[in-house]
Structure formats: C-alpha cells, structure tokens
C-alpha cells in the first residue's frame, strides 16, 4: 500500500460525503472516514467536507478544532470544501451571526441581491496568488454565501457579476475550496490529486 495519498476525511454527517470520498478514490487517494479527534490530529492529510447551513456545520465541527490545529501544527495539509471551507473563517451570518473555527481571517456573508443567488454553475478560475494546489480551469459552484477573505489568503477567485468570490484560499498547509472539486470533472480531479500529493504532516 502506498503511503503517498492517504487522507482522513472528517465525518460531520453532512451533505455529500459520499461524493467527496469517491472523488478522492478516483484521484488516486486512500481516504479514511473518521469522527475520532485523535485520528484527525495525527492524520497525514485532512479533508473537511460539508454541505449545509453554517450554524449546523459549526455545531458538528466545533469539537474538531483542537484536532485540526494539532494537524496543522504538524504541517499536515488540511482542505475544507464548500461549507467545510466557510467554517474555517472567523464568523458566518447564516442563521444569525455564528462564530466559525477561526483558522482563517474573514467573515462569511450572503451573496448580495445584485447578483443571481444561489451562485450555481461552472466558471473558470482565475489565479490570484501562488498556491500549492495550482487551481486552474473549470470549477462547479453551488452556494449562496461567500467567504470575504483578505487578498493575502486568496489563491484563486471567480467573478459573479460584480462580486468577487474567493474560490480557493490558503495559508501554510491549510486550504479552503468554495466550489466542488468532487463535481468539477477533470480539473476538479486534478486539484484533488495535487492536494493528495502534498507532503504528509510530520509523524
């Protein structure tokens, strides 16, 4: 068994967990589903998926914060997908203002009424910084809230009308992806492959 592509997927019991697991397998990964903070803290890589409202996501994710911090302190690559990205930020305004995990600076706000909401569909990513994930090509989005992330952590974006949507964010070995790489055909799979190829966290 190759140790190269292992990832622990945090099971928040939300949304399209199955799709994410299958996409990781298609990308050559060896995903392992977990609800065990110990296992997540020691994971070679961590994937935090989720599709739901911010409040519900945080209810399920709050207890994993120390484990995620421990993984990051070992320089393990960690990626949040869609809601899994949004809850990495300081706070979200879905269902009233709720605190997030606070691992990245910024807030999660509803897309303004001046653009079509939900933001559903495909568009090309635009790079806006160096990213180990090298986000490129076509991305499938399906969301009503966005992360207002500072430029310093924004690695790729997409423009929806006049609104700039942070599509990929990152700092150190922590990443967030607003769109659905697991549903973004070849380019999505390529991004997951690059995540799985990042060096594992220290033992």
């Amino acid at each position: 068994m190759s140790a190269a592509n292992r990832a622990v997927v945090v099971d928040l019991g939300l949304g399209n967990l199955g799709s994410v697991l299958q996409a990781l397998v298609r990308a050559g990964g060896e995903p392992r589903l977990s609800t065990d903070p110990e296992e997540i803290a020691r994971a070679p890589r961590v994937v935090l998926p989720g599709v739901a409202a911010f409040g519900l996501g945080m209810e399920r994710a709050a207890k994993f914060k120390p484990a995620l911090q421990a993984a990051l302190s070992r320089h393990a690559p960690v990626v949040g997908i869609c809601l899994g990205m949004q809850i990495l930020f300081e706070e979200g305004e879905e269902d009233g203002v709720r605190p997030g995990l606070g691992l990245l600076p910024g807030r999660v706000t509803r897309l303004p009424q001046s653009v079509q909401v939900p933001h559903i569909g495909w568009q090309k990513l635009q790079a806006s910084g160096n990213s180990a994930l090298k986000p490129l090509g076509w991305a499938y989005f399906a969301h009503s809230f966005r992360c207002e992330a500072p430029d310093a952590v924004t690695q790729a974006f997409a423009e929806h009308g006049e609104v700039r949507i942070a599509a990929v964010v990152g700092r150190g070995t922590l990443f967030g992806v607003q769109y659905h790489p697991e549903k973004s055909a070849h380019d999505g799979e390529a991004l997951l492959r690059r995540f799985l190829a990042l060096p594992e966290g220290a033992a």
Partner: protein
Amino acid sequence: MLTRRIIPCLDVKDGRVVKGVKFEELRDAGDPVEQARAYGAAGADELCFLDISASLESRGTLLALVERVARELAIPFAVGGGVRSAGDAETLLRAGADKVSLNTAALADPALITAVARLAGSQSAMIAIDAKARGPGWEVRSHGGTRGTGRDLIDWAREAVDRGAGEILLTSMDHDGVKRGFALEMLRAVTAAVPVPVIASGGAGEAGHFADAFEAGAAAALAASVFHFGTLGISSVKEACAARGFPMRWPV
C-alpha cells in the same frame, strides 16, 4: 462569469433508462450509469434523473442507482420523481444526489420546499414546475402534467423561491416533445419574476433553440430525446451557443 449549462435528462424506471441512448461506446444502453458516464465525457454540465416508476418497491432500486452514479460521475446530478417528504430528499442526497427536484408533493405541501432547503441548502432544493398556457398566462399542472391545479405559474414560482427553492426546472407542457423550440415567452416571464436560476425544459429540436432559451434568460437548458436519439450532440449545441455569444464550458 457563469457559463450557461446544457443538461441531458434521463427517464429512469426500476433502475433502468426508459428511452434509449445512441452512444456507440455504451456496453449496456439501458444502464443509467453507463449513460451518465457517456454524457459526462461528452461535456454535459449536469445530469437530471427523473424516476418515472415512483412505486415504493422501486425506491430502493433508485437509491442503489444514485449511489452508483455518485461513485462514477464527476459532474453534478439532480434526482426527481416521487420525492414526497424531506426524509425522501435526505435519503437521495445521502446516497449522492447533488440536488433533489420537488414537484407534485411540494404543490400539496409547500412547506416541503423549506424543509429540504433547511436540510441541504437552497442550492440543493430544486422546484420542478410543469406549466401549460391558460388565458393570458400559464397554469401549473401536477402529477406528471396530468392534472390541473388552478395555480398561476408566476405566483407559484415566486412562492417556491420565497420558501427556499434555489433553482426552477420549468417545463412547458405545450412545447414538450414538439421540437420547435423552448417556450420563450413563459421563460421570459418566469426569469423576470424570480432571482434564482431557471432551467428551460420542453421543446428542444435544434442547437439554436438552446441559445434562444439563454437569450430569454435561462441559466440552463434541459433536453432528453434530441440527445438520446443522437439528433444533437452536446458539443454541437455548445458550439452553436458559444457562436451566439453565450459563455459555455467548452472545451471541457
């Protein structure tokens, strides 16, 4: 800028596709997973599965199908037909569907839309509306278009969105199967009335019809038989729409 979407729709009965698909590479023309894979490779932006069996026994078969599709398909897919409760929707989403489409049950109990939107987010709660011209406007039909509801299309579209629907799949009963183009006047009326994306359905016969639907405000356009019988390819439709100035995910 978002690209406009082209969505093939597959009618599924007892876990098998009812209408055939003319993809030469298919090993099994009745297998929805094979067809899904072929459409994915051909550049479809999304797929829609409509379960037309909707008997209780067939629900288990449908779930197994959704799981297999989710395992192999790297584009989003919606599942509709016979979704009667938030529990039904949850089961489909857990099995791997990205969106659930609600129709007759939501007309009987509009709170169902809110329940699904709360569970999975508005972007996963699609309302399917079958409508037919009546007087100066359009009437909503239920039970696969067989029954009138007396409800006005625009009123129902607005209510569904207010209750949390994140997308509208709008089928014209008058245009469906006629292949002379989508119901553009109806599309313009609905897209002007609601802020969410509208998927045009019913009437596609040639590539230019898709561009016409986009011009009328549709975010996406859906078709079944023109794709299944090989009359049109996804690529030729996308090229025609791109030539008319619409951003398309092409080449993939």
